């Protein structure tokens, strides 16, 4: 899409940190976190990318540097073109990027979700609270070092905890994760089930 390639050339001329990003579909750029807001604003005001489609977080792994990346997808409603903007978080231990909530109000909840799942702090965000997990949940579930089954945690409501004596537990995986089999015509065969059903809570995993 040459009409969309042009803004990238223009951005590269203004910010030295803007570089091309490998992409299989839409034009994409990497932007330093310090220039992120200015680049996003230029894309919105000068290049007609008026719609923020998504804000996503990426965790590249515990060993990776930079470990966390924030990815923005912008859409130009008049030109019908997408652009992908990625910004690496400079600090692996306390990942932080500026918030785009002032540019697009829709970024508010997207950024809260990225914060909830990855612990990426969006500086300048008007109300950076967890959005899916409860307030006070101590972990960031989509980080690579967090197990799918979860970690034993106390529930938020202390009265309910006192009454029931229960808490969030590491879910029994029972040979899971539970996944659906694709291409099955028989519905009962296609139902989500554990791939390895040779072991359960009562029968230990063979060879473990």
């Amino acid at each position, binding site marked *: 899409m040459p009409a969309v390639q042009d803004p990238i050339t223009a951005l590269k001329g203004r910010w030295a940190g803007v570089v091309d990003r490998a992409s299989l579909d839409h034009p994409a750029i990497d932007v330093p976190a310090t220039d992120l807001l200015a680049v996003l604003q230029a894309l919105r005001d000068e290049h007609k990318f008026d719609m923020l489609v998504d804000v996503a977080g990426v965790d590249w792994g515990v060993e990776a540097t930079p470990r966390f990346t924030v990815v923005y997808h912008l859409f130009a409603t008049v030109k019908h073109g997408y652009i992908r903007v990625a910004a690496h978080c400079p600090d692996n231990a306390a990942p932080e990027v500026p918030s785009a909530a002032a540019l697009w109000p829709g970024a508010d909840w997207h950024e809260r979700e990225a914060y909830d799942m990855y612990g990426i702090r969006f500086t300048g965000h008007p109300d950076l609270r967890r959005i*899916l*997990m*409860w307030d006070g949940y101590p*972990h960031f*579930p989509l980080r690579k070092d*967090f*197990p*799918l*089954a*979860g*970690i034993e945690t106390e*529930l*938020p*409501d202390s009265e*309910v905890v006192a*009454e*029931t004596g*229960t808490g*969030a*537990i*590491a*879910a*029994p*995986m*029972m040979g*899971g*994760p*539970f996944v659906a089999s694709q291409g099955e015509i028989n519905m009962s065969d296609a*139902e*989500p*089930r554990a791939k390895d059903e040779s072991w359960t809570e009562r029968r230990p995993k063979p060879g473990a």
Partner: protein
Amino acid sequence: MVPANTELTYNSKIEGEVIVSTADAVINWIRSNSMWPMPMGLACCAIELMATAASRFDIARFGAEVMRFSPKQADVMIVAGTVTYKMSSALRRIYDQMAEPKWVIAMGACASTGGMYRSYAVLQGVDRIVPVDVYVSGCPPRPEALLDALIKLQQKVKREPSASKLLSA
């Protein structure tokens, strides 16, 4: 020789305005035939719950058509769907607000055991937080299965020692 009584109905001319029964039978008959559900619809099971209440399956045939969205007016909580940890506290509080006597039906795999959601976010069975009377298998269960659960619950209620419970309370 006394002839066998062939009358199928109660004859007030012979026995007067009096019926002899046990308190348990009367109380349980009243309770089990008018169980007002608290529809705790949390996921796709709630769609089947709605279908159960609608005309084709018609939960009214079993006296449970009065879905009450106020826990204070409900007898049986039908937990229909995935209970997340975040929702579990609210669910327990709603259960606590229901007036005694109260019962719980765990509808579907998720409410019963967490189902396929072996994850950090989902309560692994609603019986970890409220006492469950009847579990329904299925993902989601068909309306017939829920009606079967309701009938099973009615049978359970009919066996309860209600009178002694009321007197000791």
